[in-house]
């Protein structure tokens, strides 16, 4: 029980990850697949952010007199998350552009039907 109280960020991240993975595999709709990838990525970012709490502190990592490092968060995972968010933005935008092109030509977003046409 204590484990669940301590690790609720990580558990939420894992649940989110599998929701995204389920969406990616099960739905035939291309836009929902892209949404699934987005949810998976969000789960990984949540997980990364939660790694930043080294000593349980939640302050911004600006060190000055009277503040110990255990009170601050680790800035390294946060910098990685910002980079990751930017990359997700690029990938999502590009994937949606391709989906628009595909819809304009084939008039369907169902990936099972599209596979038969390929």
């Amino acid at each position, binding site marked *: 029980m204590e484990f669940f109280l301590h690790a609720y960020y990580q558990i939420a991240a894992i649940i989110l*990850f599998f929701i995204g993975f389920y969406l*990616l595999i099960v739905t035939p709709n*291309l836009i929902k*697949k*892209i949404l699934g*990838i987005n949810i*998976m*990525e969000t789960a*990984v970012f949540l*997980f*990364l952010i939660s*790694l930043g709490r080294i000593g349980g502190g939640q302050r911004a990592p600006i060190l000055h007199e009277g503040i110990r490092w255990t009170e601050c968060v680790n800035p*390294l*995972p946060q910098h*990685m998350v910002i*980079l*990751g968010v930017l*990359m997700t933005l*690029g*990938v999502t935008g*590009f*994937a949606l552009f*391709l*989906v628009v*092109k*595909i819809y304009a*030509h*084939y008039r369907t977003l169902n990936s099972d039907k*599209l596979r038969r046409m*390929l």
Partner: protein
Amino acid sequence: MEKILLLIVIIPLMGAIIAPLLGQKKSQAAFMIALIAALLSWSLIVFLAGQVFSHGRISYPLGNWGASWGIELAADYLTVVLLLTVNSIGLLITIYSYSYIEKLLPEAKRRIYYYCLLCMLLAAMPAFLMAGDLFTMFVYLSLFSLAAVALIAIGRERQAILAGLRYLILSTTGGVLILLGIALLSYFTGTMNLNELTKRMAHITNVKPVLVAISIIIIGFGVKAALFPLHLWLPDAHGFAPSPISAILSGILIELGAYGILRCVFLLVQLKSREIYPFINNILCWMSVLAIIYGAVGAILQQDLKLILAYSSVSQIGYIVLGIALSSYYGLLGGMLHIINHAVMKSALFLSAGALLYKTDKRTLKELEGVGKQMPYSAGALALTGIAIVGIPPACGFVSEWYICMGAIQAGRMGFAICVLGGSFLSTIYYLRIINALYFKPVNGGKDTRVAINEAPLGMLVPIWILTFASLWLGIFNRWPLQWLEKMVAGIL
């Protein structure tokens, strides 16, 4: 001196920015910019290789942060040998692109995008190889995957967009898995730097979560490398992409995925004495053996020349990963050597298949019957590099497959050695099918036997033949890459 590492990345990136700007008036300017960027970064890499071979590992911490916190670019023997291979092929493909793209993309605007994206690929591929920490690897991996998707989808055929989207979805999923694995690994070890990780691996008390993290990263890289159950994106993407891009995809990009697996296996080898290690190792070996057989059988069943080559890539990646996963001395050596050899021979094969497609506009073996007489130089290159894929002695494929066989015997796995030989036998069948169609079938259904020679332009033939000679040269004078790879493997084991 260390700043060369940064310049190798920055010069092609600058090219990617300048090419669309200067290309507005004349699209040839965009080609010139891409060519100059590729030439400059290639000559810098040759200089860097000289430095690394004489002084050892060179590393450059960006922004003067210490190596275990900040971003590090590093070049050791393995990196430099791969850099030389990757950038030489990249340069040759840039030259080849000129005539091919002129025909494929008649609008000048699309050609400019093509060269811009090619420059991005040329920047991201060496950067991925030089990255000293896992997160930087992930960033450049995403960059070149995105550029590759755009290049697959740039062609005129509508299926190309569908193939591109399929690759984008699968490779992004792989990227997410890599990021998750990196996060877990940094949580349990406290660092992402590869050197630091290798040192800390020996002192880990709780092994299972670390092994899970490394396995997740390997699955992610397996998607990029198109390892057997994760190869679904590969045949479509290779079939519908423009031929120079198929050559980059098959010759370089999937090898970079294998390089990622190689780096993870370097970490795994440090845990060799722990009890759960053989389990993961066995799974990786069996996956690659299945890939060898599946890819070869798939290639035998195909009719389209480019699809035959694509399935043969699935099979060859199996050889590479098998050698790496055996993690015996000769196995690792053979796996690394096969990365280089496969890069050279498969890009030569795709470029010559592209030359046939460029002149005749025909794709299937049935349509290509008798083309060997019409295009003696392109088809000759295809036939000569084909013997490297099969693994007949004077060509380069033989050497690395021999080493992988030795590695399997050294690790005490005779069954895997037999599988390697069986895969070689199966690849003989599809190679002979290609040769049969090109040379031993009557031209035009046997009505008119005289054929006029109608060759591809010189700008396409020169890169093809340089790569063909390189594949023969690597088979005969293989001491040169091997001496550096031997030092690398001796340092790891």
